[in-house]
Structures are given as structure tokens and as C-alpha cells.
């Protein structure tokens, strides 16, 4: 590679931090949103953050089988898709039942 003015580098720590920030945003969404679909969005963002972490370890980490991280990421995506379908079906069912998807009104099991 010829000499360039500046060589930028990317390390595992930075990618992990990105995953952490996204995970925190996801947690915030999941905990604070009133709408069940908003909560679901938070969960999806958290799963994505976890995937980023998995792929980062797979890319940078020392391992005899480095592709395992990607395999796990695919499994996570699969499970997340199933989870999204079921969760949205639940949201629709709850809406039918209670005519609301606001989670602070769906409090049958609270006390």
C-alpha cells in the first residue's frame, strides 16, 4: 500500500461501543415507550446491537472457527423475525381484546 497522508484504523473497542450505544437506545425505547409497538421497536434495536457485537467478535476476535459469530447472528435474525411476528400478532390480539396497545393500560397481571 502506498504511503498515504493519514492511516485511519478501526478497532474492536469502537465497534463494541457502537453496539453498546445502540443497545442502550434499545433499552430506553423498550422501557419508556407507551405503545406496545414502540416497545417492540426497542427490542429489535437491542437485537441488532447484539448482532453487531457478535459480528465484531467474529471479525476481530481470536478463534479457531471465526465464522461462528456470523452463524449466531443469522440465528439471532431468525429468532428475531419469529419474535416480531408473534409479538405483532400479540399486539393485534391485545388490541382486539382491550382496544388499546398502550402498555400502561394493559395491567391485568400487575398486582
Amino acid at each position, binding site marked *: 500500500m502506498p504511503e498515504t497522508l493519514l492511516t485511519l*484504523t478501526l478497532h474492536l473497542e469502537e465497534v463494541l461501543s*457502537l453496539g453498546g450505544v445502540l443497545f442502550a437506545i434499545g433499552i430506553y425505547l423498550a422501557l419508556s415507550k407507551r405503545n406496545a409497538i*414502540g416497545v417492540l*421497536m426497542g427490542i429489535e434495536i437491542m437485537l441488532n446491537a447484539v*448482532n*453487531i457485537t457478535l459480528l465484531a467478535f467474529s471479525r476481530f476476535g481470536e478463534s479457531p472457527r471465526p465464522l461462528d459469530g456470523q452463524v449466531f447472528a443469522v440465528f439471532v435474525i431468525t429468532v428475531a423475525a419469529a419474535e416480531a411476528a408473534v409479538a405483532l400478532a400479540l399486539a393485534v390480539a391485545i388490541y382486539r381484546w382491550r382496544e388499546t396497545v398502550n402498555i400502561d393500560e394493559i395491567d391485568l397481571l400487575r398486582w
Partner: protein
Amino acid sequence: MIADNGIVIAFWVLAATTVGCALMVAAVRELIQAVLFLALTFVGVAGIYIVLSADFVAVVQVLIYAGAVAVLMTFAVMLTPSADRRNSETAFQAPALVLAGMITAIIVFVAYDTDWPIADRAGFPATAASLGRAFLKPYVVPFEVASVLLMTAMIGAILLTKEEEEDEHA
């Protein structure tokens, strides 16, 4: 360590986009706009996957998340009445904010503090074929379990949303 200027710049641009869109998901007032920003977040995450040389996972991410999950969510939003389409917060907003900040701090601290076993290798070449082999040789049992899970989820979703018979005459 990746030492390629283009890839590093791409990573930071994508990271900024992704985090920005994720913040917008939390910030916008309309649920439907939040879903659209969520789709953008998914696409940004897919770009980060490509930076991490996971092309198969990236394309699957676009296909499943941006293509299917985001569409499902828009559909679910449409099914709720327009009065409930606000993207408002519960009383947990402040504690959640504190918790999120703490989690960020902890993860970043751990990420920089730990001495990770780093392998200095180039990015993977094409991953699709080796992933396929991995699914069908060492990971065949989880693979089958995942397919059973998908089937179960499908049946469950159908059952949950199925209208009961006697109501059809009402």
C-alpha cells in the same frame, strides 16, 4: 484492526447514521415515522455488517428487517386506531434514560478496559458458502430447531390473529 481508510470512514459514517436514526426513533412523535426511522436504522446496521465483512448477514438483515419486519410493523401500526399512534412515553422515561446511560457507560468501559484476544486477520472472503456449510454440518441441530421455531411462530401468529368462527356471523 482494520486499517483501510475507506472502510473506516464508511464505518463512522454508518455508525453516525445508525445511532442518529435510532435516536430519531425515540424522538419523533408519530409512531409511523418512528417505524420508518427504524427501517433506516436497520439499513445502517446492515452497512456496518458489511464493514465487518459479513456480506451474507448484511443482505439477510436488509431482507428480513428492512423488508419484512419494518413492513410488519407498519401493518401493525395501521391496525391500531389513529388515536393510539402517538409515540409517547410512560412514567418510566427518566429511570430508563438513567439506565440507558449507565449501560452505555458500562459497555464502553468494559470494551476499552478488557484485554480482548485479537486476531489480526484480513476480512473474510465470500461467507455465504462457508456459512451454509456451517449450518448443515456443525450447527445442523440449532438450524433445525430454528426452523421448528419459525413454524411454531407462524402457527402461533395465525392462531392469535384468527377471528373466531361464531363472530363471523355477528
